[in-house]
C-alpha cells in the first residue's frame, strides 16, 4: 500500500484497468478494488497525507478523521455490494463509471482541502451520469442531461464559493466554517443541490428511476450522502439547516404515498430520510453529529437494499410499477424476504440498525428542547413506515396474484442483498460495536424498555391505520400515472400557457413560478433566436454593416475619451 494514497484513487485507477479485462478476471478485479481501498483505509489510520503546494495554496489530498472514516467505510461497503449486485452486467462502461464514481465519492470524503474536494466533486457528477445513460433510452438520456446540468452547476457554484472563500479568508482548508458570508452561501447551495434540498431535489426522483437496475443502486449510495458529509463537516449547528431539514422530511412523503413506481417511491423516501440528517446537522453538537454519521450509514444500507430488491423485481419482470406487479412473493421468495428485512430496517424496528441510529437524532432534538421539531421528525418516521415499510413489500411483492411467474433473482444479487441486510441487522444487534466508530465516543442505551415499547407502538398503530385504510378503500388508489412535483415547474410550466388550475395555491404557483420559468424559457428562446446559427449574433454580416458598427463604436469611444 502506498503511504498516504487516498483510497478513492485506488478505485479510480483500478477503473482504468477494467476495460483490459474480461470474464472471470474482471469479476475478481471489480470485487477486489473496494476491498483494496478498504484495506488502505484501515491501514492508514487517522491523519493527513499528500500535502503539497500549488499556486500558493496548501492542498491535502488525504485527510482521515473519525467523521470522514465513518463515511469512507460505508462507502466502501456500498461500493462492494453494489459491484457484487451488478456482476452480471456485461457493459464495460457501467463498470468503469461505477468504480470512478464510487472512487471519487470516497476521494471527496477524504479531501483535506476545498480544491481536492471540488475535483472529486465534479468527477462524481460526470462519472455518475453514465449510469443513467446506460439505460440507453431516450427518456434516460434526457433525464441524464438534466441530471448532469444540475450536478455540474453544483460544482460550478462550489468553485465560485471556493474562490470567494479563499479571497475572504486566505484558506482553502476543508473544515468547519462560520455560516453567513457570501462564500458560505455558495457552499450551502452547492452542497444543498447534491443533498437534494427542497426545491433543489428533483434530480433525485427524476434520474434515479431512469438509471439501469444496477445504476440506481449505486447512485442511491453516494451522491446524497457525500453532500451530507460535506454539510456535516462544514456547517454543523447552522440553524437554517434545521428548517430546511423539516421541510425535507415532510415534503416528499405525500409524493411517496401516491407514487406508483417503486423506485421513484424509494427516491422520495430517500429524500425524506435525508431530512433527518440535515436536521441533525442543523442541531449540531456531538450527539447529533454522531447521529448524522450513524444514520447516514444505516440509510445507505437500507436504501441500497431496497433499491436492490426493487431492482431485482424490475430485472426479472421488466417493470417496477405497482399496478403491473402481482404475487411476486411466489416467484421470488428470497427477494421478498429481503424486502421485508429491508422494510423492517427502514421502519426502525427493534433489533435493526435504524432503531439504534434514528434514536440518536431524535434524542438530540429532544435534548435541545425542540419539541415541534421532534414531532415533525416523528411524523416523518411514521410516514416512512407507510411509504416504504408497508407499501413496497405489500404492493410490490405481496399484492394480489396476476398469474405471471418469474425466476428468482440471480445468486450474486441475493448475496449483495445479504451483505446489506446483514450489516443493517448486525448494527441493530450490536450497536455498541458500531458506535465505537463514530466521531465522538459515547455510551449507548439503545434497548431500554420504553424505547422498544414506544417504537413498537408507533409501528403497530401505523400499521393498523394502514390496514384500515386498505380495507375501507381510503388508501389512495395506485394508478398507472406519475405524480407532479416541483420539477413540473421547470419541465412543464414554461410550455403550458394559462393552465386551468383547481386551487388558489396552484394558481399562485403558476403565476409566480410559471412567470419566472417563462422568463427562463423566453431567455432560451431569445438566445436561440438571437445567437443561433444564422441569427443576428452569429450571422456573417456584410462588410459594410461591420464598418458601420466599427464607426458607431469609434464614435462612442471618442465621446467617452473626450469626456
Amino acid at each position, binding site marked *: 500500500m502506498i503511504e498516504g494514497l487516498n483510497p478513492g484513487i485506488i478505485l479510480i485507477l483500478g477503473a482504468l484497468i477494467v476495460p483490459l479485462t474480461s470474464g472471470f478476471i474482471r469479476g475478481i478485479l471489480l470485487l477486489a478494488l473496494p476491498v483494496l481501498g478498504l484495506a488502505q483505509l484501515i491501514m492508514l489510520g487517522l491523519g493527513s497525507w499528500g500535502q503539497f503546494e500549488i499556486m500558493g495554496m496548501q492542498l491535502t489530498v488525504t485527510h482521515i478523521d473519525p467523521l470522514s472514516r465513518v463515511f469512507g467505510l460505508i462507502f466502501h461497503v456500498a461500493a462492494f455490494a453494489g459491484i457484487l449486485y451488478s456482476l452480471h452486467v456485461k457493459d464495460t462502461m457501467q463498470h468503469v463509471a461505477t468504480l470512478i464514481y464510487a472512487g471519487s465519492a470516497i476521494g471527496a470524503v477524504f479531501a483535506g482541502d476545498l480544491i481536492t474536494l471540488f475535483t472529486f466533486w465534479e468527477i462524481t457528477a460526470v462519472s455518475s451520469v453514465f449510469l443513467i445513460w446506460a439505460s440507453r433510452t431516450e427518456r434516460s438520456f434526457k433525464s441524464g442531461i438534466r441530471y448532469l446540468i444540475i450536478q455540474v452547476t453544483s460544482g460550478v457554484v462550489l468553485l465560485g464559493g471556493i474562490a470567494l472563500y479563499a479571497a475572504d479568508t486566505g484558506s482553502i482548508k476543508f473544515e468547519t466554517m462560520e455560516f453567513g458570508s457570501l462564500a458560505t452561501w455558495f457552499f450551502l447551495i452547492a452542497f444543498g443541490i447534491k443533498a437534494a434540498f427542497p426545491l433543489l431535489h428533483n434530480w433525485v426522483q427524476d434520474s434515479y428511476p431512469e438509471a439501469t437496475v444496477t445504476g440506481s443502486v449505486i447512485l442511491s449510495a453516494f451522491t446524497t450522502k457525500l453532500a451530507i458529509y460535506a454539510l456535516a463537516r462544514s456547517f454543523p449547528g447552522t440553524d437554517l439547516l434545521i428548517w430546511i431539514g423539516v421541510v425535507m422530511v415532510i415534503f416528499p412523503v405525500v409524493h411517496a404515498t401516491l407514487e406508483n413506481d417503486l423506485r421513484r417511491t424509494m427516491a422520495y423516501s430517500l429524500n425524506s430520510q435525508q431530512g433527518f440528517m440535515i436536521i441533525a446537522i442543523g442541531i449540531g453538537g456531538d450527539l447529533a453529529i454522531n447521529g448524522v454519521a450513524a444514520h447516514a450509514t444505516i440509510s445507505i444500507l437500507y436504501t441500497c437494499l431496497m433499491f436492490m430488491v426493487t431492482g431485482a423485481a424490475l430485472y426479472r419482470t421488466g417493470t417496477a410499477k405497482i399496478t403491473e406487479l402481482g404475487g411476486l412473493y411466489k416467484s421470488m421468495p428470497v427477494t421478498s424476504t429481503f424486502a421485508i428485512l429491508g422494510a423492517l430496517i427502514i421502519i426502525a424496528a427493534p433489533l435493526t440498525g435504524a432503531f439504534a441510529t434514528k434514536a440518536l437524532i431524535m434524542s438530540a432534538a*429532544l435534548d435541545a428542547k425542540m419539541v415541534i421539531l421532534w*414531532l415533525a421528525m416523528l411524523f416523518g418516521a411514521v410516514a416512512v413506515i407507510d411509504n416504504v415499510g408497508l407499501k413496497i413489500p405489500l404492493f410490490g411483492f405481496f399484492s394480489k396474484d396476476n398469474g405471471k411467474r418469474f425466476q428468482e433473482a440471480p445468486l450474486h444479487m441475493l448475496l449483495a442483498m445479504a451483505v446489506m441486510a446483514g450489516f443493517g441487522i448486525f448494527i441493530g444487534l450490536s450497536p455498541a460495536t458500531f458506535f465505537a466508530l463514530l466521531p465522538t465516543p459515547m455510551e449507548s442505551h439503545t434497548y431500554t424498555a420504553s424505547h422498544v415499547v*414506544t417504537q413498537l*407502538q*408507533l409501528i*403497530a*398503530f401505523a400499521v393498523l391505520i394502514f390496514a384500515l385504510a386498505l380495507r375501507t378503500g381510503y388508501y*389512495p388508489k395506485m394508478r398507472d400515472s406519475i405524480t407532479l412535483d416541483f420539477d413540473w415547474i421547470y419541465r412543464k410550466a414554461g410550455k403550458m400557457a394559462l393552465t386551468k388550475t383547481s386551487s388558489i395555491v396552484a394558481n399562485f404557483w403558476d403565476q409566480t413560478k410559471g412567470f419566472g420559468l417563462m422568463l427562463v424559457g423566453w431567455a432560451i428562446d431569445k438566445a436561440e433566436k438571437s445567437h443561433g446559427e444564422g441569427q443576428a449574433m452569429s450571422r456573417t454580416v456584410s462588410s459594410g454593416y461591420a464598418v458601420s458598427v466599427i464607426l458607431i463604436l469609434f464614435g462612442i469611444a471618442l465621446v467617452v475619451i473626450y469626456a
Partner: protein
Amino acid sequence: MPNSDNRTYWLDRPGNVNKLFYGVVALTVVLAIPDIFALFNIFYDKHPKTEIEEIPFFYGLYAMISMLVLLGVSNSVSNFLKRDEDYYD
C-alpha cells in the same frame, strides 16, 4: 417467464387476509397494555423526556393521527397531482 404454478399459497385462501388484519388489531391492543400499566406506575416506567410523551398512548395516537393526516392529504391532492405517464414526453 409465466408458467402454470398452481400452488395455492396461504395468502390466497379467502379469510386469511382477514386473519392478518385481526392479528394487527390484537397486536396494537397488546402494545397498548404497557401504557395502561404506566398510568398506574406499575411494571413499566416511561422515561419521558418531554411533557407530550406523558400523554397516555401518545405514540400510538400520534402514529394514527400522522397516518390519517398523510393519507388525507395524499387523497386530497391526488387528483390534482396525478398525470399520465407520458405527461412530460
